């Protein structure tokens, strides 16, 4: 059959199909009162199969590139309508936090302990070292930063406190900085895990050094009442961002029975869900850090109690949540 005859025979059905697809892609609204679609939605799949057959015939008969492109475009649009992912609902978020996230963390227990070691060992080591020899802090931080730290946590500053506007500013800063760092830790994992491991070590060393220094200076109450509240959520968030990152690196380094690309895709799909949980943890940490930790009118005992409660909550959440199907 000549191309023109083929086109003449089918062009009406192609146009009808195109209008129906337009309608699916841009549902009628007040601004866009399109007429009713020529095909009912139930007829789309069979029209799509028919179009697929016509496209195959047109290719087989070597019809012109323009016709093939037109049919290809129609088939692609139909494909995207038929195979779109189910719409996500907010319920999914809730279910993710109550079951999926802790399950995923438990499924990656090995990597979790590895990341915890990569983070807490340098933290403790550096903390003890700087506690013993406070001048070591200058190998990490310039003197001005050390002076800033001292000013922030010196006990004679204890009465100063922050205004509500400062709290909001810091909340924004913690979100921008901490969650951004979490994302970078995840992304950096793609280089065989080096980026993620580096971020864990780096954060561990710095947090350890600062804690050791402030402890050696005797700013114990001001410093530890500040970090107690959000510590559990923030430190766990950092470690879990490392887990997500190392998953990427591990998939690239040892893809097992998959191709590297396929292993990477699977690890990324799993890792990004861990990262969503990390976002939730770090958001909570940022909120506590900005509006609770900074409040110096709250007695130290309550702050320590809240800090311990936070750790208990984190431990119970990751060990117990999602054990039974809801």
């Amino acid at each position: 059959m000549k191309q023109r005859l083929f086109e003449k025979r089918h062009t009406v059905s192609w146009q009808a199909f195109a209008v129906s697809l337009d309608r699916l892609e841009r549902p009628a609204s007040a601004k866009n009162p399109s007429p009713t679609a020529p095909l009912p939605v139930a007829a789309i799949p069979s029209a799509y199969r028919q179009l697929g057959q016509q496209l195959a015939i047109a290719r087989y008969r070597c019809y012109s590139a323009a016709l093939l492109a037109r049919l290809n475009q129609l088939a692609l649009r139909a494909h995207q309508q038929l195979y779109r992912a189910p719409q996500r609902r907010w319920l999914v978020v809730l279910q993710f936090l109550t079951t999926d996230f802790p399950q995923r963390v438990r499924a990656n227990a090995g990597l979790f302990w590895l990341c915890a070691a990569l983070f807490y060992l340098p933290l403790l080591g550096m903390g003890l070292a700087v506690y013993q020899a406070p001048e070591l802090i200058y190998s990490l931080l310039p003197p001005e930063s050390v002076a800033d730290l001292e000013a922030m946590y010196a006990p004679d500053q204890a009465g100063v406190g922050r205004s509500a506007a400062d709290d909001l500013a810091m909340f924004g800063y913690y979100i921008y900085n901490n969650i951004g760092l979490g994302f970078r830790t995840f992304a950096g994992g793609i280089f065989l895990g080096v980026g993620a491991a580096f971020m864990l070590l780096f954060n561990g060393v710095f947090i350890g050094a600062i804690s050791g220094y402030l402890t050696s200076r005797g700013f114990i109450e001001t410093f530890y009442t500040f970090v107690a509240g959000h510590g559990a959520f923030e430190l766990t968030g950092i470690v879990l961002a490392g887990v997500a990152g190392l998953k990427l690196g591990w998939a690239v380094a040892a893809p097992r029975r998959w191709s590297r690309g396929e292993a990477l895709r699977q690890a990324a799909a799993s890792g990004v869900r861990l990262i969503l949980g990390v976002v939730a943890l770090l958001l909570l940490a940022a909120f506590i850090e900005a509006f609770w930790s900074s409040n110096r009118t709250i007695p130290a005992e309550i702050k320590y109690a809240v800090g311990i409660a936070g750790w208990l909550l984190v431990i119970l959440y990751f060990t117990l949540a999602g054990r039974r199907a809801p």
Partner: protein
Amino acid sequence: MRPTALAPLDTLCRLETPEGIELTLRVAGPVARALAWGVDGLIRYGALWGLLMLLMLLGDGGFGLWLIALFLTEWLYPALFEVYAGGATPGKKALGLKVIHANGTPVDWPASLIRNLLRAVDFLPLFYGFGLVALLSNRNFQRLGDLAAGTLVIYRDLPASAPHWPPGPALPPPFPLNPADQQLLIDFAERSATLNPDRQAELTDLLAGHTGLYGVAGVERLRTYARWLAGVSL
């Protein structure tokens, strides 16, 4: 479902659907994507600058809100548009691009988040260095984020619309033509309106050994064959 390139020299990506239909996608290269990124950058940083002016009126608290806006624009601006606006940020839309899964389906939240979080490593060491290297070293112009998410950036629309056939006679070619040659003639006739007359003649003169005609006469002769092959006179 695994996309493969048609031929080494084009930017087409072929994928087979569950119905056995083979679809062709035109993947977008680094220049178009860089331009789209530039347009998005102007929009994003323009909006952030305006917001900063506005929120600075609120003092330090306003700056906190602005940092949250900065965080959201930096990480989630592309993902929001890719998921809720048909796979394209405003910049991609302006350049006629869109993001889809490598299996041809619309991009969803996890994939869009992956490709946009991994932007952080594609951007390294500076100005999309790793991204560009990854993009140029695979067939489908995928940067690291696309590889991890299993996504492609494609052209949304066709390059050309319905071809214009100049009216005229149709004759069967006096020599046998295999399907590829027939297609070549038809393609020439469909595209000849976009070429200037000198270029048309230059191309058809290559076949003067077969037609015995040069210049405009050769062009016209090949068009008559093409009309017959495409069945235009019907």
